[in-house]
């Protein structure tokens, strides 16, 4: 629906300018425009539609059709602040209207109660900058429910004994079980675990004018041509536009937040598609640009008032980066599973969410999945040691393509202060702006935990009857897609960047809401929480605005 589409002039002061149209930006745009505010969303990528989406692996994987192009926006990487960073693709995020929610896998777990109070429960961990959230699971629960019902999540309430309390069931039954889910469920049960239907932000039934999943098999990495994947593009952005108060402005690359003499944000400065610069004026600015670009934008907006970066009096902008630890195990079964059909994940288990007495902190989830598209499978899905070409390569490819599935382990990343995004002192992007510099080394705790999880995954594959099975070695991460914790929320302005309302401690009319707000990493699959935070933030911001506490 495009009824009532509106456009504003940059010089016209709107109520809110939101930077980013992804998981959180889309929700904020919908909520604030529905609440009567005039909103402009600035998105650096194009406004693609379902008709533009493709199954072409070349276009997706090599042409960066939906994601940031490292040639245009390169990054540098180093393990520690003592190292010199080298140019290396190390971050990937969605760069189109809808952001990463367009191409994601759509696993939609909630965080558990413990995730918000882990520091109090566990105490300090050496080398980690561990803290409690300023909000609890109970504060967020209504908003998790809102995500499920409004954005569209399929699942089965009460199916996991480890699930946190919920106020309402899922709006739709789970997606159908895949062969990988069946064998995973049987194997995990045999070992005494509690697998359950994966909560997925993919429609199992037609809903709100959108199609149910057609099981095309091009899901992770691809946009959904059926509108079944609950991206911001498919779900909340059309609702925002329908209010007649929200403009989604694509191809608008924000590079500075402008302040007035009194230290109040006056708007966002961006390059349009022709690289002309504009200032979109607004009464308040919300950054929802993701856990890499939100801190980068604050650092790019350094000024005489904020020499270390906007809203960075704490020095925590860009720090405590958490990507979620992960490792994959694969197995090959005797009969065709044909898991290339359908979405990626149909079963998950949370028996290891809170591990104790294993010599490490944290935990994770295990899921059964198949997220390979055909060429990616041939390059990376075969057992180690298989010939790389010739008759044997082809024979194994033919035998295994339909018989392989994965057990994927996701888990905690502890916050470490040195793990961060900053501005590279030398490298520039195609617009001449300082490139992202990532500094990252996994906390040793997380590597120990993932090694333990990997062994459990192999046991499950064994119990599933996979005669051929293998796991990747657990190694330090140098590339990430979950970008969490880099402008963490907290009550103390000295140790956090935003408060519990997502308002920066330093600038009254500047708000940050995306993965950067998270204080702990959960156990993987952060988008559900990012959207719940966005719904909650919209309520808080609306209340502040209606009390006159933003523009005053």
């Amino acid at each position, binding site marked *: 629906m495009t009824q009532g589409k509106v456009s504003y002039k940059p010089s016209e002061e709107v109520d809110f300018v939101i930077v980013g149209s992804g998981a959180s930006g889309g929700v904020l745009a919908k909520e604030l425009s529905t609440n009567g505010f005039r909103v402009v969303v600035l998105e650096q990528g194009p406004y693609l539609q379902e008709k533009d989406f493709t199954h072409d692996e070349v276009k997706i*994987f090599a*042409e960066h059709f939906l994601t940031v192009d*490292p040639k245009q926006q390169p990054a540098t990487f180093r393990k520690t602040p003592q190292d010199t960073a080298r140019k290396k*693709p190390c971050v990937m995020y969605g760069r189109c209207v809808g952001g990463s929610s367009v191409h994601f896998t759509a696993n939609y777990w909630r965080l558990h109660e413990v995730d918000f109070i882990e520091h109090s429960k566990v105490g300090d961990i050496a080398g980690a900058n561990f803290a409690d959230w300023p909000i609890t699971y109970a504060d967020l629960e209504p908003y998790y429910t809102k995500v499920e019902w409004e954005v569209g999540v399929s699942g089965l309430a009460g199916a996991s004994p480890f699930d946190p309390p919920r106020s309402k069931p899922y709006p739709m039954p789970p997606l159908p079980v895949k062969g990988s889910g069946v064998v995973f469920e049987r194997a995990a049960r045999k070992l005494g675990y*509690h697998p359950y239907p994966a909560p997925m932000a993919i429609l199992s039934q037609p809903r709100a004018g959108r199609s149910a999943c057609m099981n095309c098999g091009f899901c992770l990495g691809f946009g959904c041509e059926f509108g079944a994947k609950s991206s911001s593009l498919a779900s909340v952005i059309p609702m925002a536009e329908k209010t007649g108060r929200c403009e989604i402005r694509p191809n608008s690359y924000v590079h500075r937040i402008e302040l007035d003499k009194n230290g109040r944000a006056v708007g966002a400065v961006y390059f349009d598609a022709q690289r002309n610069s504009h200032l979109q004026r607004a009464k308040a600015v919300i950054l929802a640009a993701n856990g890499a670009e939100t801190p980068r934008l604050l650092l790019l907006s350094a000024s005489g008032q904020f020499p270390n970066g906007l809203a960075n009096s704490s020095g925590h902008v860009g720090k405590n980066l958490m990507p979620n630890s992960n490792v994959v195990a694969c197995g090959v079964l005797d009969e065709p599973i044909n898991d290339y059909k359908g979405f990626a994940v149909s079963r998950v288990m949370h028996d290891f969410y809170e591990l104790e007495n294993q010599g490490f902190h944290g935990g994770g989830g295990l899921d059964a999945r198949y997220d390979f598209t055909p060429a990616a499978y041939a390059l990376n899905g075969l057992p180690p040691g298989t010939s790389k070409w*010739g008759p044997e*390569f082809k024979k194994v490819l033919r035998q295994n*393509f*339909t018989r392989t599935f994965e057990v994927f382990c996701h888990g905690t990343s502890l916050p470490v202060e040195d793990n961060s995004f900053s501005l590279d002192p030398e490298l520039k992007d195609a617009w001449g702006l300082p490139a992202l510099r990532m500094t990252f080394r996994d906390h040793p705790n997380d590597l120990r935990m993932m090694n333990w999880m990997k062994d459990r995954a192999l046991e499950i594959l064994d119990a599933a009857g996979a005669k051929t099975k293998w796991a990747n070695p657990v190694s330090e991460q140098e590339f990430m897609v979950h970008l969490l914790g880099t402008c963490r929320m907290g009550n103390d302005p000295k140790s956090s960047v935003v408060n519990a309302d997502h308002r920066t401690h330093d600038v009254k009319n500047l708000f940050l809401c995306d993965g950067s707000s998270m204080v702990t990493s959960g156990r993987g699959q952060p988008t559900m929480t990012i959207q719940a935070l966005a719904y909650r933030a919209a309520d808080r911001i609306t209340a502040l605005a209606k009390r006159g506490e933003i523009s005053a």
Partner: protein
Amino acid sequence: MNSFQPPRREFLQILSGSAGAAWLTANWPALVSAAEHAHQTAKSANPKLEALTAEQAREVDAITSRLIPTDDVPGAHEAGVVYFIDRALKTFESDSLPTYQQGLAMVQQRTTEIFPGVPRFSAATPEQQDKILVELFAEVEKQEGNRRFSPDANQSDFLGKLRIHTIFGFLVDPEGGGNRDFAGWKAIGRDPAHMFSPPFGFYDKDYPGWQAAPAETEKK
């Protein structure tokens, strides 16, 4: 162990970390317009070469036909991989054209060294061709020593690059300009249909439905 292993660890982590394709994103420049053209070219009766000469294309076809050979199901040749690669070298992979030119010359030279009297790779028997490729892959491995087949390394070597291009040309959705008439998908057992309904395979066909675990196994 030959050294021509793609960087599966990194790749899998990335794929599973929910992004898909980051390794390719990072290491393989843009591909697409090429593909569309290649699809058309591969379908036409008299395919027109744009980057490779007819002689070079004949050799590329011969090599890729050993990387993914034809047996009772189609191989690289039937999938039109050489046209996918030709178009790639004209467009998004034009930077790689010198690598191909030098690589093809190297293959020719090694062919005549290993099998004196055989003028070029395409003139060798399939058995001879496989021996040549085994030797060439081994030479690369030796050069690289114990170094992992890293993304950085693959960009500079002809055979590694050719292998990746061959796999994409064989298995990409035909929309992407390879996999002519779904030859590659048919070979690996992928149904070319655009949509599917459960049950998908052997293990889910008699599944009775999800049920809560018996109470005695409850752990919480």
